[in-house]
C-alpha cells in the first residue's frame, strides 16, 4: 500500500516542513483519500490538492493524534504556551463538557428481570439514521448478514459477563432490552453508545474494518451504558479517562470471558482485528498491558497513551484526552489482574465492578479517588490479603496515590 513506501520526516508533523515536503505530503494524502473514499468526486480531490499545495501549513488531510496537534498549537515561549493551553482547555470545557443524563435513582421495574437478554438488531442501510429497519429479534435464526450475527453475539457476550460474573441484569440491572443499529452511515469509522442503544459503522475498509468484529469494542460501548446508569462519570478530563478505562476494562473482560482466557492468556488489547489493510504497523487501538504500543503508523500516527502519571498528557482535545490518559488506569487494572492470576473477571474484575457500582464513586472522580475506592472495595470484598496488596502495588506502579 502506498503509505508504506513514503518516509515521512518528523518535522512534517510539527508544521515545519518545507514546501517540497508539503507538496509530497499532500500527494500522499490524496492517495489515501482516493482509497478511503470510493465516491465519484475525484475532480474535487484534485482541486483540494491544489488548494492545499498553496497552503504552507501542512497537517491537513492526515489523521493526527491529539498530542501531535497540541504540539503544533504550542508556542515556543513556555509562559505563552501555558496561557494558550489553559485558554484552550477552558474553551474546550465550555464547548464540549457534557454530562450524560444521570439515570441513577430511577426505580427498577417491579418483578425480577430475566436472566436472558432481549436483543434486537436494526439495519440503518448505510444511512446515518437510527434505529433503522428491524432485521433480527431475540429468537430468530441466524441472519445471512455476518454483521448482524456478530452484533447479536456481542450483545449476548456482554449480557453474559455482567450477569454471571457480577449478577447484573443488563445495562441498567433491570433487564434493559439491548438494541443495536448496524451499517450506520457510509464507510463510517466508528461505533458509539447513544445513551440508549449501540450504533456500529462498517468502517471504510482501509483504515478500519467493521466495528462489530472485535467483541471488546461491543463490550466497551455497552459498558458506557453501565457507567451511565451507575457512577455516571463525567466525560471530560480524569473522570472521562476513568469512564473510558472502565469501558476498556470490561470490554476486555467480556472478550476474555467469552474466550475462556485467564489473565496470562489474554492479549489485553482493545480493538484487535479492527485495523484495515491501510495500516501497516499496528495490532489494535489500545494496549492495556503496554499503553502506547498498539500502533506506530504513518496513517494513524503513534499510539499516544501513557502508562504512568509521569507521562500524563495535558490536552484540551478529545474531551481532555479521555482516550489518551485512560492508559494509566488501564495498566493499573492489568497489573492487578496479572498479579492475582487466574481469571481477570473474578477478583480483579469484582473489585473494579464494586468500585463502579458501589455508590461511592463521584461523577467527577479523579484517578486518585478511583484508586482509593478500589482499595476500599478490595478490603470489603476480600479483607486484608493479596487482593488489597495487589491493588495498592498496581496504583503505585502507575504513579497514582491510593492511600
Amino acid at each position, binding site marked *: 500500500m502506498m503509505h508504506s513506501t513514503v518516509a515521512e520526516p518528523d518535522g512534517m508533523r510539527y508544521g515545519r516542513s518545507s514546501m517540497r515536503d508539503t507538496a509530497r505530503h499532500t500527494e500522499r494524502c490524496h492517495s489515501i*483519500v482516493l482509497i*478511503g*473514499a470510493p*465516491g465519484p*468526486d475525484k*475532480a*474535487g480531490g484534485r*482541486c*483540494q490538492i*491544489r*488548494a*492545499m499545495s498553496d*497552503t504552507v501549513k501542512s*497537517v*491537513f*488531510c*492526515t*489523521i*493526527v*493524534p*491529539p498530542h501531535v*496537534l497540541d504540539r503544533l498549537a504550542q508556542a515556543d515561549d513556555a509562559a505563552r504556551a501555558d496561557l494558550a493551553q489553559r485558554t484552550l482547555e477552558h474553551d474546550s470545557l465550555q*464547548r*464540549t463538557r*457534557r454530562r*450524560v443524563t444521570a439515570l441513577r435513582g430511577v426505580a427498577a421495574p417491579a418483578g425480577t428481570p430475566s436472566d436472558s437478554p432481549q436483543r434486537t438488531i436494526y439495519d440503518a442501510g448505510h444511512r*446515518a439514521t*437510527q434505529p433503522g429497519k428491524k432485521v433480527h429479534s431475540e429468537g430468530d435464526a441466524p441472519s445471512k448478514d455476518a454483521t448482524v450475527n456478530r452484533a447479536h453475539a456481542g450483545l449476548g457476550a456482554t449480557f453474559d459477563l455482567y450477569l454471571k460474573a457480577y449478577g447484573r441484569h443488563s445495562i441498567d440491572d433491570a433487564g434493559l432490552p439491548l438494541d443495536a443499529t448496524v451499517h450506520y*452511515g*457510509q*464507510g*463510517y*469509522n*466508528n*461505533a*458509539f*453508545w*447513544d*445513551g440508549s442503544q449501540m*450504533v456500529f459503522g*462498517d*468502517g*471504510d475498509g482501509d483504515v*478500519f474494518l467493521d*466495528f462489530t468484529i472485535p467483541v471488546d*469494542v461491543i463490550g*466497551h*460501548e455497552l459498558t*458506557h451504558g453501565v457507567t*451511565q446508569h451507575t457512577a455516571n462519570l463525567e466525560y471530560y478530563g480524569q473522570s472521562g479517562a476513568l*469512564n473510558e478505562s472502565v*469501558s476498556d476494562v470490561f470490554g476486555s473482560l467480556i472478550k476474555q470471558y467469552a474466550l475462556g482466557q485467564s489473565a496470562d492468556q489474554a492479549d489485553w488489547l482493545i*480493538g484487535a482485528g479492527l485495523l484495515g489493510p491501510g495500516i501497516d504497523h499496528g495490532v489494535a*487501538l489500545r494496549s492495556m498491558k503496554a499503553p502506547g504500543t498498539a500502533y506506530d503508523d504513518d496513517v494513524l*500516527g503513534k499510539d499516544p497513551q501513557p502508562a504512568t502519571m509521569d507521562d500524563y498528557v495535558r490536552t484540551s*482535545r*478529545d*474531551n481532555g484526552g479521555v*482516550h*489518551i490518559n485512560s492508559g494509566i488506569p488501564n495498566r493499573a487494572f492489568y497489573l492487578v489482574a496479572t498479579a492475582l492470576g487466574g481469571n481477570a473477571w473474578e477478583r480483579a474484575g469484582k473489585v473494579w465492578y464494586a468500585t463502579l457500582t458501589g455508590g461511592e464513586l463521584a461523577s467527577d472522580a479523579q484517578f486518585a479517588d478511583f484508586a482509593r475506592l478500589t482499595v476500599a472495595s478490595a478490603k470489603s470484598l476480600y479483607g486484608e490479603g493479596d487482593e488489597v496488596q495487589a491493588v495498592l502495588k498496581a496504583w503505585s506502579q502507575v504513579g497514582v496515590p491510593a492511600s
Partner: protein
Amino acid sequence: MRIVITRTGGFAGIERRAELDTNGRPDATHVQALAHRALAASPAEAASVRGVPDGFHYEIDVDGRTVHCADPHVSHDQRELIRLVLREGA
C-alpha cells in the same frame, strides 16, 4: 470559500482535519450553498453539541465562521459537507 473540518473523539480517539477551497472547483456553487446550509443547521441546544461517549465531534469552519456538532445530532447537510471535506465516511 475555505472550509476546514476538524473531527475529534470517536472510539479510536484519533483526530482528523482537512481543508477544502472551493476556488476553481467545477462544483463551487453547490459546495458553497452546502456550506451555508451546514452553518445554518447547527443545533441550538447545547446537549446536541455535547454528543455521546465515543461519538465524533466536528468543528466546521467556513471562512472564519465556526459551528460545532456531534454525532448523532448532525444534519444531513453537515454530514454531506463533512464527508466531502474529510473524504471519509461520516
